[in-house]
């Protein structure tokens, strides 16, 4: 697996991941492009630079862990895990088909290297806390990362977990809010606004870092600062663009859960380059 902190190399990987996302969802004729594309830089930086992990030993006890709580963005995770060497790249286009390991939402029965089976929103931070607590019990410096959607944080369980992690100082976990401002039925502000978002996490005793979720150096710095922060869990409020990288998908609620047509796929791939 490539490991690099070189920004250009990470950007090149991000382009490859975007191509996979478009191709696999177009081939499946269903899936969630918008929230996959918004998370690309964050997760590429995590997997190829920040996290301590080894695709050859997916169950190594000392590994850092990543959980995709917003499980509908599975295509971004699958593409990255495949490029990292966990799973076959040449099967990505079997996404969502009967028998494929690339299930519609992350499914540990099919890919044991996944840290969680997700798809029902709201549950990931609790799981991450459990993993963080276990690492502390084991005297391990393993860290756990969990990504949630901005719509997802409307779930009550998110705030139960936020209160627990703040109170119990679970400082070996990092939550990443993919703040792309769109959920399923439309814009977050029109459905149930989550603002003031930073103030909410602050008041739950989290270390809050706001950043541009497509700016790789900013992402590297945020994860670095999170690792230095003791006594508090960290949340990255990552300002992102849903559908990022494909102009007609960007900031377009339609592409939350609609696959590109063949023509749209070709246009998208051309744009991504």
């Amino acid at each position: 697996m490539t490991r690099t902190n070189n920004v250009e190399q990470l950007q090149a990987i991000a382009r490859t991941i975007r191509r996979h996302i478009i191709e696999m969802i177009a081939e499946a004729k269903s899936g969630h492009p918008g929230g996959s594309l918004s998370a690309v830089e964050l997760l590429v930086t995590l997997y190829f630079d920040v996290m301590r992990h080894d695709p050859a030993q997916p169950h190594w006890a000392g590994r850092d862990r990543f959980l995709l709580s917003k499980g509908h963005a599975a295509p971004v995770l699958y593409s990255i895990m495949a490029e990292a060497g966990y799973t076959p790249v040449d099967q990505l286009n079997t996404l969502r088909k009967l028998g494929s390991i690339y299930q519609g939402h992350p499914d540990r029965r099919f890919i044991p290297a996944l840290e969680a089976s997700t798809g029902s929103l709201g549950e990931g931070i609790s799981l991450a806390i459990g993993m963080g607590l276990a690492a502390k019990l084991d005297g391990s410096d393993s860290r756990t990362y969990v990504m949630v959607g901005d719509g997802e944080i409307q779930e009550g369980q998110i705030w139960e977990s936020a209160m627990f992690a703040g109170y119990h100082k679970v400082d070996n976990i990092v939550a990443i809010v993919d703040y792309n401002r769109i959920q399923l039925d439309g814009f977050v502000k029109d459905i149930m606004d989550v603002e003031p978002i930073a103030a909410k996490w602050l008041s739950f005793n989290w270390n809050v870092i706001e950043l541009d979720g497509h700016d790789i150096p900013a992402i590297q710095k945020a994860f670095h600062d999170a690792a230095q922060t003791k006594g508090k869990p960290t949340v990255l409020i990552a300002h992102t663009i849903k559908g990022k990288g494909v102009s007609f998908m960007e900031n377009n609620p339609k592409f939350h859960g609609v696959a590109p047509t063949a023509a749209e796929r070709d246009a998208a791939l051309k744009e991504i380059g």
Partner: protein
Amino acid sequence: MAQKTKIELKMGVATREAFGQELLELGRENKDVVVCDADLSKSTMTAYFAKEFPERFFECGIAEANMVGIGAGLASAGKIAFVSSFSCFVLNKGFEQLRVGVAYPHTNLKIVGTHSGISIGEDGPSQMSVEDISLACSLPGLIVLAPADEVCTRKLVRLAAGHAGPVFIRTGRPKVPIIYNGDQTFEIGKAVEVLEGSDVTIMANGLLVAEAVKAAELLDAEGVSARVLDLFSVKPLDREAIARAARETGAIVVAEEHLVDSGLGVRVAQAVAESCPCPMEFIGLETYAESGSPDGLLDKYGLRAANLVDAARKVISRKRA
């Protein structure tokens, strides 16, 4: 009445679509009808109601437990309140609120789950509701309905609105064949005899009713006369129709798009055991399914007419043994 032994199946709309349309009609007729959804209104089809009656529609965001609680509050204050999401989310996330806020105080809330069963297809098990009948039936006083087609769905949405007490309606994502004429009547607690028959009874609900109709036709070609009962009313069950079928046909197959060890089948088995025990076979899901096309999944997980035919042959052979 002429013998009903055959139905020409024509494709209709999805039961969730029929729900959305009928809910809009109800809203036009009665300004006390209010609706809550949890960021899925374009999928549950409450969007039709939301568009015409924005002041009576409450978008709760991705927060199903809160939505059930709000719905219970609206109902307690005299509204005819519907809450809707995918079945798995409204029932699983909202279960405690359904228990203490709805079932226990017998609150007049209407819960409509969509995308039930495995026929949602590609999204996979996290969105597939295969425990909802079990969960819903476990709650005392909750009426549990699972319509097979658009005609039945429309009438059940109306029945639910007029019923004083909590009701859960289970609907599905894909288009399904039409079973009923528009003049068919439905009653809570009463099964519908879809086809007459004397050798075996196939009892089903939801999209398995159409499969049962196809199975009956296949069995007819083998000289087997299969009765088909639509048990859209899972709770209360039509214990009389079940006992009659057990007595008159002496063999029963129950088929459902739900976990087989906790759904319709075990409830029917109880009713049969208490009235007129006879051989029974059960068609349903053994465990969580996976992603795939709806048709591919129904084939792979054995929820097809051919599976019902096999089960019918088997249960008839047990009767003769």
